[in-house]
């Protein structure tokens, strides 16, 4: 059985899940950092502060726009793309490579937060060859019973 995802492991989990994620930080609803990954410990406080500022700015930007409060944000800048996602309990921000696919990254953020909140654990699949399984194709042969 898969272990439950804890807040302490969440930032690392996201970076392991996505090859384009360089660093991540998890904040609780009050903005206190719960975990970080991809930056040195002396810089983690700065990253958490910037993530807090980002979510505050998202709320400010949203006042001019129709629709409900934004749940996710994507900011493309010269050296990379920053994504953020939140639930009523958690805020997760990630610094990704510029070439990261938005839809995949946003889905990963949502999936990791879902897992943290007790949702379905993310299932990772491994190639049969890498897992030491049979080398032949898992597809059934045509005409075989």
């Amino acid at each position, binding site marked *: 059985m898969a272990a439950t995802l804890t807040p302490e492991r969440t930032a690392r989990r996201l970076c392991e899940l996505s090859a384009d994620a360089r660093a991540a930080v998890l904040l609780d609803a009050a903005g206190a950092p719960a975990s970080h990954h991809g930056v*040195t410990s002396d810089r983690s406080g700065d*990253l958490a502060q910037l993530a807090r500022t*980002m979510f505050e700015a998202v709320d400010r*930007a949203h006042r001019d726009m129709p629709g409900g409060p934004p749940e996710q944000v994507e900011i493309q800048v010269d050296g990379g793309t920053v994504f953020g996602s939140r639930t009523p309990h958690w805020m997760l921000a990630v610094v990704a490579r510029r070439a990261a696919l938005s839809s995949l990254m946003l889905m990963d953020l949502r999936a990791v937060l879902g897992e943290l909140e007790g949702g379905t654990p993310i299932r990772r699949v491994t190639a049969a060859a890498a897992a030491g399984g049979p080398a032949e194709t898992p597809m059934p042969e045509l005409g075989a019973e």
Partner: protein
Amino acid sequence: MREKRKGPIGRATGLAEGVAATMRRMQRDREPAVLVYDETGYARLVQPDGRGYERLLQTAERMVDLVDESEAEAKPRRARREP
């Protein structure tokens, strides 16, 4: 109807147009952009004159710089450890 074959000038023009389109696309991809998504996944673009746009861009740039610095600092340390 068969398309008329292009001469060397036509081919060169076609090539130049392709390169120009690629350059325009690359330029557009590099431009900063801010998008917010609601809970249904509906995306809205924050306009450059919109409230919070500049702040969001500056914050994201600082986050990227921070990670760059952190990685640059970690690299020589790793290189020293792995001869």
